[in-house]
Structure formats: C-alpha cells, structure tokens
C-alpha cells in the first residue's frame, strides 16, 4: 500500500479540470497505455497576453498519476506560458504534499505533458523519439530524458532513475547503460579496468563460449519462455539460433546485443554474435 498524502487522495477522488477543451490552442500527449500511464493535456491560451486561460486533462493511470495531472492543471491556470514552463516535476510533487519515491515518474509525466503542450502552441515539432536512441526499451525512455531528469532532480543511482522515469524497471537489461550515463553526468570515477585476459586457445575459447551460453544465457531466456541454440563458432564469429518464445520476439534485437555483450565480457571482447 502506498503512503499517499491527504492532498493527493483528495485530488484523486475529486480531480479538478477533468476533460478536454474544445478547439484547444495547445495539446500535449505523453505516455502510452502499454506503459501503464498516459496523459492528454489541453490548453486554452489568450493570444495577446500568452496567459493560460483554461487547462484540462485526461489521464489513464494510478491515483498519483491522476492527482499529478490535476495538480498540474491547477498550477498552470492563470500563468503565462513563460511562467508555466518554470513548473518542474518537483513543484508538482510539492503541490501534492510529496509523492512516494516510486511514484515520482507521475510528476515527471505531468512536466512532460506541459512541455509538449507548450511546444505544440509554439508550433515547435518535437522529433519522434528514435528507437535507437532509446536506453530503456521496455518503457521507451531516451538517454536525453534520463540525463534531464537526473540533473533536474539530482539523481545519482539507477534506482532513483527508475523511480523517476521507469527506465530500468522492466527487463533490467539497460541498467549498465544507465550506470554509465550517471557516471558521465556526475563524473563518478570509473572502476579500474580488469587485468588483461589470458589468451585462449581455440579449443578453450569454444568450450568457454559453450559454457557461457549454457550457464549464463540460456537460463535467463528460458525464464521468459525463450531459448537459444549454439550453431557454429568461427574465430570470433558466433552463430546462434533463437528458439521457443524468442522466435519472432520483438525484443529479439535487444536480446542479441545482450548476448553479444555477455560473451564479450566473459570470453573475448572481439566476439560478434549473429543469428542463423
């Protein structure tokens, strides 16, 4: 059970500014039903003063997502766009008397919808997030978002990044990448590189690759109903075939690069993994 403040519960049970403005001057849409929360913000803006006359929201999500959305609309009504853009996710959380740390991503969603709406009003086109720039595939979180939220909220651990952006909260395969981003932002010293690995004979290498696939990779895939079969090893080129649930899985690309990373880490950094 989450510890919600009275203010948050009030706004959840009796949300203000619910709905959709007809012929809005600005629309901001963020999130998706797959990820578990989505927010559609519509604004009426006075063209001369740039003041937000009305703001309404529609939210699919939990109590804190609904309350954060409602809080946002309350906070920005009557402000000019330039004033409104100053509202941070921390301000939204404070307005609610605080959010459980695992729910901070709800306030971030509010802030993002506001940014999207203001960009929409100004006619700026936010380029659609390119798939390859995504750090977290499960919740579609970009590196840019992780960096921005980390800096704005002084986040230094992966766990905090997950609480604020959801990144890393799904399959967890992006956690090393999030660690790297955090190290880069806060200039945390990289650990010493491990000692150079001993050169392996071909037979040793083949045995080691088999061992890593059998002990490290297969059990994880099998836990999600998938499987893999080692087909061939030619120098540093490892050919595998995806089996069971992995066949046709949309996450196949991610899985393949994880397998390659694992083999690079444990066997040889020049290994390239290919599918049959």
């Amino acid at each position, binding site marked *: 059970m989450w510890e919600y403040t009275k203010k948050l519960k009030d706004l959840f049970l009796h949300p203000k500014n619910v709905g959709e403005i007809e012929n809005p001057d600005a629309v901001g849409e963020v999130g998706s*039903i797959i990820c*578990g929360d989505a927010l559609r913000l519509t604004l009426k803006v006075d063209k001369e003063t740039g003041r937000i006359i009305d703001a309404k929201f529609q939210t699919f999500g939990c109590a804190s997502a609904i309350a954060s959305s409602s809080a946002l609309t309350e906070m920005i009504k009557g402000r000019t766009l330039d004033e409104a853009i100053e509202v941070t996710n921390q301000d939204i959380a404070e307005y609610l008397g605080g959010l459980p740390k695992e729910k901070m991503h709800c306030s971030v969603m509010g802030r993002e919808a506001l940014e999207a709406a203001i960009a929409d009003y100004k006619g700026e086109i936010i380029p659609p997030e390119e798939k390859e720039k995504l750090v977290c595939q499960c919740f579609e979180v970009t590196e840019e978002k992780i960096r921005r939220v980390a800096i704005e909220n002084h986040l230094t651990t992966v766990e905090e990044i997950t609480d604020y952006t959801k990144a890393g909260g799904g399959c967890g395969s992006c956690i090393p990448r999030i660690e790297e981003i955090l190290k880069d932002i806060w200039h945390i010293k990289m650990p010493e590189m491990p000692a150079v690995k001993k050169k392996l004979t071909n037979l040793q290498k083949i045995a080691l690759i088999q061992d890593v696939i059998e002990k490290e990779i297969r059990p994880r895939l099998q836990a*999600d109903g998938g499987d893999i079969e080692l087909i061939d090893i030619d120098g540093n080129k490892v050919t595998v075939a995806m089996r069971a649930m992995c066949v046709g899985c949309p996450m196949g690309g991610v899985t393949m690069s994880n397998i390659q990373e694992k083999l690079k880490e444990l066997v040889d950094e020049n290994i390239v993994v290919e599918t049959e």
Partner: protein
Amino acid sequence: MKPIYFDNNATTPVAPEVLEEMLPYFSEFYGNPSSMHTFGGQLHRKIEEARAKVAGLIGAEPEEIIFTSCGTESDNTALMSAVESYPQKRHVITTRVEHPAVLNFCKHLSRKGYRITFIPVDNSGRLDMDAFLKAIDDDTAVVSVMYANNETGVIFPITAIGGMLRERNILFHTDAVQVAGKIPINVKDLPVDMFSISGHKLHAPKGIGALYVRKGTRFYPYIIGGHQERGRRAGTENTASIIALGKSCESAKEHLDKEADYLKRLRDRLEGALLKSCPDAQVNGDTENRLPNTTNISFNYVEGEAILLRLDEYGICASSGSACSSGSLEPSHVLRAMGIPYTAIHGSIRFSLSRYNTEGEVDKVIEMMPPIIKELRTLSPYGKEESRKC
C-alpha cells in the same frame, strides 16, 4: 466501517473457533513440547492431534505432515529437498505462472547452475501439456506445478501430470495453498509426492504452514537444528499456531462441500452482474476449471490501482494485477504469461471470497463498481471508443 473483504486469496480472517482454540497456548500452556516435565511434554500430544486433523483434510497419514512457518517455507523445503535428494539430477520443471515462492526459488536454482524449464500457459491460463511432456527427461529432479493459480483461480490437471511423472519416477510437488480447504482432496488418489499448505489462506493465523511428504519419498530438511518434526524441520514448535491450523483444517473439512457451493453462487452472481453492468470487461482465466471463490476481471482502459483506491473509499478490499499496485513497474507475470493485452492487465481486478462474505456484500460491490469504472473512464484519454486505436 467493517470492510467488505473480497481479498481472501491474499489472506483470510482467523475463524473465531480457531482463535479460541489457540489462545490458551500463549500464556497458560506455554511449555516446550520437547520438555521432560508434564507441563511442557503434554503439548506434544496436542501437536499430534493437530497433525492428525491436517492430515485428515487431505486424506494423508499424520506422519506425512511436517509443520512449517508458512506456504513459502513449504515450497522452498519441497524443492530444496528434491534437489538435495537427487544431486546427480540437474533439471527442474515448473510453470511460468507460479507464486514467487516457487518461481524465484527456481531462478535461484538456475543461478546455481540448474537447468529450469518454465512451462507456458495459453490465453485461458491452461498449462501447455505438450511443452510439459517434451520437457521431461532423465535429468529431471522434480516438477513443481501449483494446484490452482492464486490470481485467476485456474485449477491445473494435477492428477494427469502426476500420473505421467509417476510412470517415470520423477518427484512431483504441488503448491496447494489456494486449494486446501476449498475443494475436496485426497492424496491417496492424487499422484503427488509433496503438497504445500498455508495456514492463513484457510482461516488459521499467518506464520504457520504445512508440507505433506508422501511416505517413502526421499527427504532432506531445509531448516537444520534440533530433532523437532522427527528431524525434518528444526526449531521449537509454534504450538499455538499448529493447534490453530489443526482446528482450521478440521472446520474446513466439515464445511467443505456446502462452502464450495455457497462461494461459487456468490462469485458467479458477482461476476455475472459486473460483466453485464460494466462494458469492455472480461474474465481472465479458464472458467471451467476454477476455484469456486475467485474471479479475475479486466476492466479495459482503466488502471487497477485507481479502481482499488476508489473501492477502498467504500471499505471494499480487492487486488489488482496492474503495475502500479505491484510495487514494481511490471504488471502481473501471470496475466502476461497468458498473453492478456496490456490494456486489460492494467485494469485487472481480483475478487476472492470466503465463507464470511454475504449476499449483501456482493450486492454492495455490484452497486459501487459500475459508477467507479464509468468515472475513471471519463478521466481516461482512452475512455472513448475512437481514441482506443493506440
């Protein structure tokens, strides 16, 4: 406000007769059953009486029952005992929809180098028997399949699975915590070797469980220490709770048939009415083979935690498979394994009833639910038909 408690697969209230039975064993008869003096030693007999009652519920012999601290301990003990007893075998079979007590223990075994096969289920939560048959091999140490799923109530074909395993001499464990006391079971006719029971799922207190181990099954203890439970589970006996579990099994057996009918009638009325009054709702799981007390309904396009908190305002207790109510960001592993779309998983609500629920309570939920769903849909950007093409 007295809660309307429809979350009995999570835990149940302690029955009044059970509480009464256990109370003297805290401060009046507080002795240690292992003591030589009569004051303590006499409790040994009470524990054996309780053991006979637990055995009686499932048709076991009293010496086949080991008392544990909970369902999780029973599950862990069964799996650990199996792999310790057959150290040369390195393969374990389970399902993708098990309780974390089994699922995460298997993942732990996987990290120790065991090969684990997780059998998938279909859209109705039914086990893929072909995949199961293919997975069995000479290396398989144990198969662990839950008797019924806690989230959907779907009952698995334990007799059929056990039959196949018996032919091949493979150990079979079933996590039956959701089943014991809800449907009639006789282990004499059931080809299982180990069977987990949890006290607080059948009106005994939390902190007590039992593991049935068929006579002749190789066994290795999980908790090692004193001679208690004939050396199969060390630690001074939780006398009061053991006596409580005995009593709760006795009353479960007494009421079993009548209670199952009663629960099924309440559940079917609740389910039928909600499906009728709430558009875009569906039942998750095979309704043919299902516990009589459980229904799992998805209210599409609304989020489960929001539904639960609105229900909470009326003192109605239920649970959800949505991500936001799980404490992690991942929604229910059971519904995902069934391939239920995310739009439905996020809005899934489980109602699970017990003998203490009434027609009046069902009426109240039938009355309160539709306006909650309707209002949350007006809040949602997916509330309207045409906005759902996402």
